Structures are given as structure tokens and as C-alpha cells.
């Protein structure tokens, strides 16, 4: 039935081949134009698992307390001392400039120059205080000395001023949406503006500008992602050279490359059509599409070439290659697509985008490389030496196939299977130690020595603040902060959590109220307590404005900020576990401690979402591959023989992650699904040739040998092509691309080995010869 359908399809297409090719050309022009309109796009909101309970808390209180999307600009004086007129002029300019950059929440811009930066001091008859930078400030020596005194009184050293007075901070919160236009903030444009308006204008020999925050990171990632173009060119050139070595024909080299590039153009164009941008995270997809396209194209040209060598005309050979490869190629590509579609189940925006853009791309390959390619080839005339004396290459290949075919004999099969089992269990132990989350300090997407990470390290070294903040939101009833027992519980919570490894310091309304109470008592530390009387408590709380971020308008919500040592997954897990344990004992009708906000709160949610998604994703992707194999082979044994090598290789890939210190994160989670989806191709190509021969009673070794002769070189070639396509990422400016590159290269190569070594060994066991 299927055969009839394919035959009908073939004769229709080849009869109207000029029309069909013309349509392809038109569509390519249209989508090529669309692709040229494609924009880089990175939004904070896409990176977080919105439906996770932490993120629900985060979103609920984002308006009152700002989110995790902040920007910090440290202005450093390279002399190591900020108290000079030139520096203060620059700092003021930076403050004013940041204030006016669209997208900045102007009420949340904080620095020495913001009016909310005040000092108070205790004098004999009460308090004295004022803005740290007085209204009549001038950059004279007296003026600077006054500011220096005020800075110490204001207690802002470490936050707004570096501990060694070598730098000062200007910080701001960003809005996710432009309040005037209602459009989402263009993070990458914003980052470019920071670079131009701040660093471009104000960085000199004397003053250095260090900028960190999600927006800046996204901008730097986007910049790094642009370097990918070079890798793309390299990948094309290397692939071209390989295809030429394989086909020994310029025309057979160019056509699969052109068709694969067409697939890339279609994929990028379709992204614009459906209204997506290209996220730096998804920039790997064009590579994958190209590499997968080439590998299927190679199967086609291999088949055509073989048939031409057998004496057929190019047109007949193309049509016959089309017929024989449409089903196995289609099944393989479908299982790739399904592998990607399973990623849609993960509740993180960018992974879904990756899933959609990758499945689009792979779907497109069915059209461009399984249909268009044979059609285009049929217009050409391929000259190959007619069948005669085998060339030395063929003799060598034949020796290799003979050698490989031994894996399909019981004797060798046992050895291979035992080795496979051994490496599986060795790998499993390592794989179980695989870490979740980002394992490096700084921005994990970027290299440790990138400008952004150096800026991060500068700020964490010179200031007491860190971007590794997790916020626990305390939800209570209105006016809750006027009750001694409420604040006492928050205070106790804060103290217990501070005593957790990984928490460096904490702050909450309770701990600040204690200090204010000491302030009301002549600054005497012996009064650093929460006063029992409501009047004294209200008096202390009254000094703390809502702009401090410690309470909302009616003080029904009071965050506890946890400043953490780093954002490694283990650190986050330890702190989250402690918060949950303490909260479980303290939560009651009046008071709940809820996770989480702040950058590390977002990471905690992401880590949990990623960890939770891992198992279902594997089940879906393997389930899909299983069903597809079962449909195409109609054999349980064949299906199992394809899937076992895949599974062993995924386990080994996880072991590799442990060994290379690569954590399971948003960027690496899709890799296994991609690796399985694509890795299954090899097995399908080999077994689809074998299975009909096996069911006709041919011995396994012979069937495997014939499969190798027909498709072995193409399979090995495919593995190498794919590996080359992604291995160029090893040199990427972006750490996560490097990680993905390493893992995908491993998956592609080792899956190929699995298909030509483990698969025949399994087949030898499954289709044992009756004695």
C-alpha cells in the first residue's frame, strides 16, 4: 500500500519536475526575503518557567519589589580613589544617562546622586540627616570631604560605594514592557544602548564602566552569537570538502549543499512568518538543519550514484533513489521532528522556541532534501566510471565492511554486548552524579574571561553586594509589620536561613527595624532589638520607606533577601531545602514564607523545572522513537535493536556532562532529545535495509554486510558531517554553545558507532540462526 503511494507520488513529481522545482524556487525567494527580516530576540520572561510556583510568587509581587531584571553599573576610578572632581562629574553623568535610557524604571534608579540616598546620625538632641550629596554640592575639596563623611554615616559602603572607595554603583530596575507603547522591552537594543550611551561616552583611561545584569548579559550573548556566522561558513566549507571526497563529483557536492542551505533559508524565513525572532539560544538550529540536510542529501546522492554505476540514466536513478529513500528518510526525519516536539512539554519559553524552530527546520528537510534534491539531480547528467574493475577505494571499503560485518556474528556479538553493558553501568554511575543548573560563577552562558564576567567579578570583589540574590516573600495581612510577633518570626526565619551554608548575608524588614530601633536609642547596639510596644515598633518601621524594597504599601508583604555565595545548583538546593524546612514549621494563617524571587530564585525555579522535565522528556522522546520504529519496521526486535544503542549513548552523554562539569541547564537539556532524535537516523537507515533481507531468511552477518555495502559509507559519512557541523561551536564565544557543541558532537559520533557496532551485535542475538 505504502509502496504504491510512494510510486504514485514519484511518477507525479517526476512528470511535473520543472513545475515542482519552479515552485520551490519561488518559495525560496519569498522565505529568503522573510529570513532577511529576522531579528535577534532575547526576553527575560522567555528564560523562566512561568508556571512554576516560585515564578507565580515572583510575578505576583514583581510590581511592588521589582523583579530579577535589574542592571548594575559600577563606575570605577582606576586611581583607586573616587574622591576627585572628574570622577564625580562622570558618576553624575552616568546616573543621569541611565535615568533617561528608555526601559529603565526611573523610580528605581539608585546611586549617590539619587535623592533617596540619605544619611542620618545621632546627635545629643536627636537625629540629624540629609541627602548624602548636599543640594549645594560642588566638586571642591571641602565638598568632596563632606560627601565622604556623609557616605560613612549613611552606611552605604559596600552597596553604593565600593568597600575600598575605588568605585561607586548606579543601579536600576528594568521594565518588561514599555509603559508608553505597551511593547515588550527590546533587551538587545537596550544592551546596545548601555554600551553606547554609558561605556562609549564615559569610559576613559581614568574611569572604567562595569555593567552587569540580565539585559547586558543577553546583549553580550547576542553579540557572541553573531560570531556564529563564521562558524557556519567554516562548517559549510568543511562539509563541502567532505562531500566532495565522498562523491568525487562537483555537481553531487553542490546540489546537497544547496538544498540543505535552502532548508536553512526556509526555516529562518518561517520563523519570521510565524512571528518569532532568533533567540541566541536557538542559533544552533540552522547548523543542525544544515547538517541533517546534508546527511540525508548524502544518502540520496549515494543511492543515485550507485544506480548510475549500475548503468541507469541519471533521471531513472534519481527517481529510484527517491522511491527507496522517501520512507526510511521520512521516518528518520519524522523521528527527529518528534524528538524536538517533545521539548514543547518543558515549561520554559526559549526551550519551546527551540523546539518549534528545530521541528520546522527538520520538517522542511523532508521537502528540500528528500524531494527537491532528487528532482534537481534528475536534470543533471552524472558521469561515473561504469561498473568494471573495482577501484582501490572500493577494495578498501569492502575490506572494512567485511571486518565490520563480524560484529554480527555471535562470537563478536557477545564481546560487544558485554562491553556495552560494562560501559553502560560505568556511565550510569557517572550519569547519576550529573549536576543540575549552572556550575560556574558569573554568567554561565559566557566564558569566565568574557568582559561581562570580568565585570561581575569586579563588582563582587569590590562591593558587598552580589547578583546572586534569592528573595523569600513573606505574605501576611495588612499592617502585619506593626505586630511584634510577626516581625519576630521574620527575624527568626532570617536568622535560621542565614545560618545555612551558601548564604553570605541577609536583610529583611525585621533586621533593619532592629537597627533603626538602636538608632532611636542613641545608636546604642544594646537596643538593637524589636521593641515589644507597638508605638516603638511603628516608630522604627516608619523610618523605612517602601522604596527600600523591604515592605509594600500596607506592609502585608515583606521580602527577606538572601545574598548567596554563588548560584551553583548545590548551593541553591541547600538553601531552598532550608527555607522550605523552616517555612514548613513557621507558616500559619497569618504568615507565609514563599519562594522565591530575585535572580537566584529564578534559577531555583528553572533548575527545578529542568530537573522535573528531564524524565518526562526522555520518556516522550523514546516513546516517539519507539512508535515510529515499530511502524516502519513492523518488528519489535528491530525496534529494540535500534533503541538500546541510543539509550546507552544518552547515558554516556550524561556521564560526559558530569566529567566535563557541564550542568543540566536550559541550554543543555535539549541536547539529549536532539541527540536521540537525530541519532536514531543511523539505526533506521541500516536496519531498514537489513530487515527485509532478514525476514527473507538471510543470515544476519550477510544481511548486515549488504546493508553496509549499500548504506555504510553514507551512515559513517553522515555521522562525521553532523559532528563537524556542531564541533565548530567548540570555539564559540558563548560558553553554552561550546557545551552544546561538545555534547552534540559526542552524541552524533557515538550514536553512529552504536549503529554500526552495537546494533549488528544485538541483531546477531535477536535473529539467531536456528542450529
Amino acid at each position, binding site marked *: 500500500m505504502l509502496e504504491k503511494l510512494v510510486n504514485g507520488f514519484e511518477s507525479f513529481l517526476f512528470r511535473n519536475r520543472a513545475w515542482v522545482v519552479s515552485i520551490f524556487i519561488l518559495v525560496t525567494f519569498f522565505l529568503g526575503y522573510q529570513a532577511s527580516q529576522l531579528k535577534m530576540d532575547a526576553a527575560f520572561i522567555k528564560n523562566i518557567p512561568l508556571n512554576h510556583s516560585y515564578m507565580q510568587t515572583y510575578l505576583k509581587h514583581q510590581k511592588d519589589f521589582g523583579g530579577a531584571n535589574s542592571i548594575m553599573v559600577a563606575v570605577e576610578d582606576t586611581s583607586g580613589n573616587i574622591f576627585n572632581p572628574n570622577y564625580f562629574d562622570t558618576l553624575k553623568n552616568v546616573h543621569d544617562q541611565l535615568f533617561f535610557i528608555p526601559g529603565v524604571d526611573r523610580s528605581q534608579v539608585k546611586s549617590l546622586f539619587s535623592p533617596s540616598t540619605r544619611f542620618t546620625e545621632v546627635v545629643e538632641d*536627636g537625629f540629624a540627616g540629609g541627602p548624602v550629596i548636599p543640594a549645594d554640592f560642588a566638586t571642591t575639596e571641602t565638598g568632596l570631604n563632606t560627601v565622604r563623611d556623609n557616605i560613612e554615616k549613611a552606611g552605604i559602603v559596600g552597596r553604593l560605594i565600593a568597600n575600598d572607595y575605588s568605585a561607586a554603583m548606579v543601579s536600576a530596575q528594568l521594565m518588561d514592557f514599555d509603559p508608553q507603547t505597551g511593547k515588550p522591552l527590546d533587551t538587545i537594543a537596550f544592551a546596545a544602548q548601555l554600551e553606547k550611551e554609558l561605556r562609549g561616552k564615559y569610559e576613559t583611561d581614568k574611569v572604567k564602566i562595569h555593567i552587569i545584569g540580565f539585559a547586558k548579559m543577553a546583549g553580550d550573548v547576542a553579540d557572541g552569537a553573531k560570531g556564529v556566522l563564521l562558524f557556519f561558513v567554516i562548517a559549510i566549507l568543511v562539509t563541502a570538502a567532505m562531500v566532495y571526497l565522498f562523491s568525487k563529483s562537483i555537481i553531487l557536492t553542490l546540489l546537497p549543499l544547496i538544498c540543505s542551505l535552502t532548508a536553512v533559508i526556509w526555516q529562518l524565513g518561517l520563523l519570521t512568518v510565524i512571528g518569532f525572532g532568533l533567540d541566541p539560544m536557538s542559533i544552533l538550529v540552522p547548523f543542525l538543519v544544515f547538517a541533517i540536510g546534508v546527511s540525508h542529501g548524502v544518502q540520496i546522492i549515494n543511492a543515485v550514484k550507485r544506480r548510475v554505476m549500475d548503468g541507469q540514466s541519471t533521471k531513472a536513478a534519481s527517481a529510484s533513489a527517491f522511491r527507496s529513500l522517501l520512507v526510511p528518510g521520512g521516518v528518520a526525519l519524522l523521528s527527529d521532528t518528534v524528538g524536538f516536539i517533545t521539548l514543547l512539554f518543558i515549561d520554559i519559553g526559549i526551550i519551546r522556541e527551540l523546539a518549534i524552530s528545530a521541528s520546522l527546520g527538520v520538517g522542511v528537510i523532508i521537502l528540500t532534501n528528500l524531494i527537491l534534491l532528487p528532482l534537481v539531480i534528475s536534470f543533471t547528467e552524472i558521469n561515473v566510471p561504469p561498473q568494471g574493475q573495482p577501484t582501490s577505494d572500493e577494495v578498501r571499503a569492502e575490506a572494512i565492511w567485511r571486518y565490520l560485518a563480524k560484529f554480527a556474528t555471535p562470537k563478536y556479538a557477545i564481546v560487544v554486548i558485554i562491553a556495552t553493558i560494562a560501559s553502560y553501568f560505568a556511565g550510569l554511575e557517572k550519569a547519576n552524579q550529573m549536576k543540575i543548573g549552572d556550575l560556574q560563577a558569573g554568567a554561565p552562558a559566557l566564558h569566565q574571561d568574557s568582559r561581562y564576567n570580568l565585570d561581575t567579578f569586579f563588582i563582587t570583589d569590590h562591593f558587598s553586594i552580589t547578583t546572586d540574590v534569592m528573595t523569600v516573600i513573606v505574605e501576611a495581612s495588612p499592617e502585619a509589620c506593626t505586630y511584634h510577633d510577626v516581625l519576630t518570626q521574620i527575624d527568626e526565619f532570617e536568622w535560621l536561613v542565614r545560618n545555612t551554608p551558601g548564604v553570605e548575608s541577609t536583610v529583611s524588614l525585621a533586621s533593619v527595624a532592629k537597627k533603626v530601633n538602636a538608632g532611636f536609642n542613641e545608636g546604642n*547596639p544594646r537596643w538593637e532589638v524589636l*521593641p515589644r510596644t507597638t508605638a516603638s515598633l511603628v516608630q522604627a518601621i516608619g523610618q523605612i520607606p517602601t522604596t527600600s524594597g523591604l515592605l509594600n504599601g500596607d506592609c502585608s508583604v515583606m521580602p527577606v533577601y538572601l545574598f548567596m555565595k554563588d548560584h551553583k545548583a548545590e548551593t541553591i538546593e541547600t538553601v531552598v531545602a532550608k527555607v522550605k524546612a523552616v517555612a514548613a514549621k513557621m507558616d500559619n494563617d497569618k504568615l507565609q514564607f514563599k519562594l522565591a524571587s530575585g535572580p537566584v530564585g529564578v534559577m531555583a525555579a528553572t533548575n527545578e523545572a529542568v530537573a522535573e522535565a528531564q524524565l518526562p522528556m526522555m520518556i516522550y522522546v523514546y516513546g516517539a522513537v519507539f512508535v515510529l520504529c515499530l511502524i516502519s519496521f513492523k518488528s519489535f526486535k528491530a525496534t529494540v535493536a535500534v533503541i538500546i544503542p541510543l539509550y546507552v549513548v544518552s547515558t554516556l552523554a550524561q556521564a560526559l556532562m558530569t566529567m566535563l562539569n557541564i550542568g543540566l541547564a536550559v541550554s543543555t537539556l535539549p541536547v539529549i532529545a536532539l541527540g536521540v532524535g537525530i541519532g536514531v537516523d543511523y539505526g533506521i537507515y541500516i536496519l531498514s535495509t537489513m530487515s527485509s533481507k532478514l525476514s527473507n531468511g538471510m543470515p544476519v552477518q550477510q544481511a548486515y554486510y549488504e546493508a553496509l555495502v549499500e548504506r555504510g559509507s553514507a551512515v559513517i559519512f553522515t555521522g562525521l558531517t553532523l559532528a563537524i557541523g556542531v564541533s565548530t561551536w567548540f570555539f564559540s564565544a558563548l560558553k553554552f554553545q561550546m557545551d552544546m557543541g561538545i555534547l552534540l558532537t559526542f552524541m552524533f559520533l557515538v550514536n553512529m558507532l552504536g549503529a554500526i557496532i552495537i546494533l549488528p551485535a544485538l541483531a546477531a542475538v535477536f535473529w539467531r540462526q536456528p542450529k
Partner: protein
Amino acid sequence: MSFRILQCVAAISVGCLFSSPSFSAQSERFPQIQPLAASSLVLDIAHAGKQLVAVGERGHVLVLNDKWQQVPTPTSVQLTKVFFLNEKLGWAVGHDATILHTQDGGQTWSLQMQSTEIEKPFLDVLFLNEQEGMAIGAYGLFYRTRDGGANWTEEFHEELLAEEDVSYLAELKNSDQAAYLTERASLLPHFNRMIALKDGRLLLVGELGLVAMSADKGQNFTRTGFDYDGSMFNAIQLQDAVYVMGLRGHVFKADLSLAQWDEIDMPVKSSINGVMAASETSLYLVGNAGIVIQLNQDDSSSIVTRRQGENLVSIAKDNQGNVWLSGSQGLLTLKP
């Protein structure tokens, strides 16, 4: 704005009708021993014989062995002072009118008194012998024991009231007994520190320029000729000179007659909380803004160190010769 007034308002709103101390045990939901106890707010260090014992926030008590080790206590309120009569017997006092007692050099503690109703902290404790002791605190809080702390009774030191307050109280006592008690509870200044001079007289310093002397074990105090209005937080005798010190870096010196106090010029304007004899002829003063000052007999002084962003409250030397500071960052050694 005067915080003195604000505190009075706060205290009046509830009043002080305390008669018998009530005892409350600390909740046992979470362990009191925590890794950061030695690096959170520590308010006093005292010698138990040769050993140092420190007290701080959340009822923390720490004992210095090779390093500071936290020991459990029956309270979680802030402890403000600790006093040891000898290497075994000690008392610690704090907020919620708490008095703790140890008989084993600070290893175990029992509660002698605690009352949330009093709503005033004890700020110092002094024992003259195993039986007789006094605990003093905010708004003239004054409790005395004659049985080693088994029973504590309140005393009101009317003699330290300002003159106009005396007549005001006398009037009120006749007209409105309840209002009289309420007012009385908040008219006296904070008693911050009481020390025994070498001749046995007691010197009491406190809020609003209170510097008073008692020659009868604290039954009656008389104000000395001290005419600065700010609070004094500490006092010490060095040879034949008596020093008091407090708000905004004010330090005064008098001879043993305590008749005339001369102000000593200080290099900083931060409040001074703690003091220790550095040698026969010099003192170490510690205070807010992380200052440690050496003050010599000839009134010359120098800043030893300034720990930015910290408040230092107490200073003591251990038997190895290390000088320990305590304050907002807990216990740390003074690096000369």
C-alpha cells in the same frame, strides 16, 4: 525630635504594673546552637576566672576554649551584659528583664528572672559577693538580690530624679495612684553601667549625663559634679583616675573625689561603648563606627583601628594575651 520623649511615650502606653516576675521557656522548634552565633551581634565579654565568656543577641552565650563555642541558654532574647564574681558564679542580663545565672563558669545557665510585661531591658549587672547583687537597666530599672539571685526585688531610686520630677510625682501620688506608677516607670534615666571602684564605692553612669556615686552598696546614690547632658555608656578606674565615656566620643576624667570632671579631646565623634585597661597607664576604648582608640594617662590618644560599617561594644584580653573585640560582626581579635 528627641528620642527620649518617644521612648517615654512608648513606655507609658503600656505602663509598668509589674509585681511578680513571670517565666517563659523558649520555644524548642529550632535549635539555638547555630554556626553564626560567634559572628552575629555580641554585646559583652567577661572574665570567668581565666576564661572568657561572651553574650549577645538571641540569648547567645559563647565560651572561649580554643575557639568560641556556643552553649545553650533558656532564652532567646538579647543578652546585654554578663558578670562573673569568680570562675564559677556568673550572671547575664538582657531584654524582657531577663536574668540568667551560671554556677559552672558559663557552661550551663538557668533563668532567675524574666518578664515581658516589664518591657525594659536590663543593661548591666553587678555582684558584690555571692549573695548581694544588683541588676540595672532602662528608665532607672533597678533590682536587688540578697540571696544570690533566688529572689529579686525592685528598687526605685527617687534620689536620682530631677527636682521638678520629684514634686510632680509627689503630687500625682496623692491624686492618682495608677498614673503615679505609670509615670514613675519612665521618669528616671537609663542606668547604663555600674562599676565598683577599688575603695568599694559604686559608680553609676547613664542617660542624660547621669554620673552618680554610692558609698552604701547602692542603697543611695548622689550625682557627682558632672555637667554634660549626653549619655554615658561606660566607666573605668585606672590607677587614681576615674573615666566615664559615652555619646559621640565624649570622655571625661576625674580624680577619686569625683568632684570635677575634665573632658578629654577625642580624635573621633563616635559613641564609645566599651573600655579595657590596655596597660598600667593606658586604656582601649571601643565604639560605634568600628573604632578602637588607645587613650593614655597623659590624655593623648590615637586610633588603633577603624572597622568600617561595624559597631564595637566590648573588649577583653584572654589568657593567651589576645585582645578580643565584640560587636555587630561578633567576636574578633584586635590585630595591632
